[in-house]
């Protein structure tokens, strides 16, 4: 670690210690709704301070609400926040704003668009959703049917989106729409941004097997998107969305589960608790032990790879080709962890509700079900393998894209 970075760490640590409300220490994500009186005010204070500091989106330029930090510096910031048991709530509050929309806006947006959209997003005040998938299209994004008609100053949208994450609580939406129906499938598509709070937009939450409803069906009935909110060139939306999805893959390469709390127990400790140990301290269930250590080795090799690729990509703007590997690997590790935890907890790992199951047990079940989605949204295993096979290994394209 360089001296400059160590100096930055000292600064960051001082700032965090001064500004982080201790009442929030150890509180996980998704807690916002459960906060009461004082804690809620502290939460709002913490968000505002982070936003003001530019640490909601620390690597964005200062003029657009960021702090202009390098990636290693941003990592230091998040480490220092973790150190005091805190979390940065802004990425979650912004929906798809920090991880996907923002970085794409920085590359494709006009100065006006950046100025209008980025600062409030970086403060966690504007939540974004994305209208990409449509019913019956699956992974085949380009076959979309939502129409955008040119009405002079604005586009008039008609059609249906599905799997729009958080659409029911978002302020803005980035949508892929067909602007030239006569062009071939990948042409004639544009990427527009539109406010969700308008008459022509309706959302309907989808209940998932985990019981949660993080996604919606979203209906556009004569919805309005201003021409000034067209991102990228007209009919070049495919380039925009490809970049957007690269940012998504990048944000999904960490092997932790999205619902994992800040300080969850190591899985091997959970295993020892439920399955017991033999005289030598080894897990009593030898078959489970082998699979557990295999999982832990997979997880370790994944995080070592993230570190290696980050180090190798130092200073490069382009997303490394290996990011495609990390997506599948992260998904497999996260899903295996859930399956193993369920197995470890045995009959207690099946709790849905009620006092007879611990919060940890019930959480394991929900996480397990929720985690099945990781391999579906953002490109299936198969799509990633096609990408690796073709783009990285240079194998000839097959007639089979599925």
């Amino acid at each position: 670690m360089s001296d400059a970075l160590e100096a930055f760490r000292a600064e960051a640590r001082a700032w965090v210690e001064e500004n982080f409300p201790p009442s929030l220490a150890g509180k996980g994500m998704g807690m916002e709704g459960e906060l009461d009186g004082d804690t809620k005010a502290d939460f709002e204070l913490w968000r505002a301070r982070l936003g003001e500091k530019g640490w909601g989106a620390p690597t964005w330029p200062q003029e657009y609400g960021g702090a202009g930090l390098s990636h290693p510096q941003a990592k230091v910031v998040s480490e220092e926040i973790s150190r005091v048991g805190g979390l940065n709530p802004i990425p979650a509050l912004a929906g798809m704003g920090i991880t996907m929309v923002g970085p794409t806006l920085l590359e494709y947006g006009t100065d006006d668009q950046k100025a209008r959209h980025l600062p409030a997003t970086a403060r966690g005040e504007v939540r974004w959703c994305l209208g990409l998938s449509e019913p019956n299209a699956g992974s085949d994004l380009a076959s979309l049917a939502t129409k955008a008609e040119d009405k002079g100053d604005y586009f008039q949208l008609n059609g249906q989106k599905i799997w729009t994450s958080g659409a029911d609580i978002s302020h803005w939406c980035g949508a892929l729409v067909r602007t030239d129906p006569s062009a071939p499938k990948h042409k004639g598509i544009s990427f527009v941004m539109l406010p969700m709070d308008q008459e022509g937009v309706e959302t309907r939450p989808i209940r998932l097997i985990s019981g949660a409803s993080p996604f919606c069906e979203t209906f556009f009935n004569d919805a309005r998107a201003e021409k000034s909110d067209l991102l990228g060139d007209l009919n070049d939306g495919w380039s925009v969305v490809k970049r957007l999805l690269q940012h998504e893959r990048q944000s999904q390469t960490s092997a932790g589960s999205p619902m994992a709390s800040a300080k969850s127990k190591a899985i091997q400790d959970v295993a020892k608790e439920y399955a017991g140990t033999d005289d030598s301290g080894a897990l009593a269930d030898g078959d489970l032990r082998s699979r557990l250590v295999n999982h832990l080795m997979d997880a370790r090799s994944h995080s070592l790879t993230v570190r290696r690729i980050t180090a190798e990509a130092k200073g490069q703007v382009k997303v490394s080709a290996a990011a495609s590997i990390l997506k599948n690997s992260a998904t497999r590790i996260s899903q295996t962890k859930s399956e193993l935890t369920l197995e470890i907890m045995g009959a207690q790992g099946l709790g849905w509700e009620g006092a007879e199951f611990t919060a940890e047990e019930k959480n394991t079940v929900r996480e397990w079900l929720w985690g099945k989605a990781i391999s579906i949204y953002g490109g299936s295993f198969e799509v990633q393998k096609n990408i690796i096979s073709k783009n990285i290994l240079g194998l000839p394209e097959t007639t089979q894209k599925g």
Partner: protein
Amino acid sequence: MIRDQAQAWATEQAPVAAFRRMRDAGVANRFEPATWESMVEMGWTGILVPETYGGSDLGYLTFGVVLEQLGRQLTASPLYASALVGASAVLLGGSDAQKEALLPKVVDGSEILTLAVDEGPRHTPGTMATAAEADGDGYRITGRKAQVLEGMSATAFIVAANGPNGIGLFLVPADASGVSRTALSTVDNRGYAHVDLVDVRVGGDAHLGDADVLEAVLDRARAGLGAEMLGVASQAFDMTLDYLKTREQFGRVIGSFQALGHRAADLYSQMELARSCAEAALMAVDAGAEDTAELCSLSKAKVGDFLHEMSNQLIQIHGGIGMTDEFDAGLYLKRARALEPLWGNQAFHRDRYARLLGF
């Protein structure tokens, strides 16, 4: 044939849609009384019971045929817990008087039996804390049994406890003094309960055999469960195959993508291999074969592995729609995982199989 009858009845009278309605309505015992009455009427409660006690004595392989069809529709009822597991305990460990007293009631559905063995989250039939102390001419039982299948609807528990001769089985009426039960809400919405026993007094005729009987009953329970799990998995396979043939992407049905076609081929192979294990276990029980224990562990493990993989592929291949509660895939995934730990998961049975083979 009983297979056709079971298939027709399950798909028409008790399909997965009925299970969903029952779930959404929050039925307390987790099954519809009418469903249970139909099963009794069709004589399924008597499949294992000798004719002298009002049954048809058709054997475990036949019972497996029925359970497979019920598994396909996730049909909820106490049939398995009472007429297979409970009846097996009475048949293997009961005196003539006990058989006379219990089996006709199992057949007519007025008695619902269930086996209570485990006390924690994992299956450990060799050790338990529940004690049955000799008390006059009977026993006094104290302990807690966890995750008892159909524990809320059962009229009597067959409780494994440390008795005067080591581990034994004891019949405890659900309404005996000192018995209390707590309903559980589990992911698969099947009926389970924790059962507490505090100084429960039962007579000397409550004793239903010792550790060897428990082990034999458990093997029958595993063989039966193997059949049900095979049904759950087979239905998941059929749903997946159907989807592969009808769902289009990039302008063609997705089953024509080689990677998915090969995966379907792998799953089909696993299914055929698992079926052989499931049927062999049931036939071994019927024949009283020497390798019954091995085959029952084999069945629970191999069908378990297949069901685990198949239920994950069901979700994975269906993509987004598989994640929605509206679609049935989630119900199968949940049931699949809930059946895994019951009477020992795959790791348990791999370990047991190795021990049986001497290594």
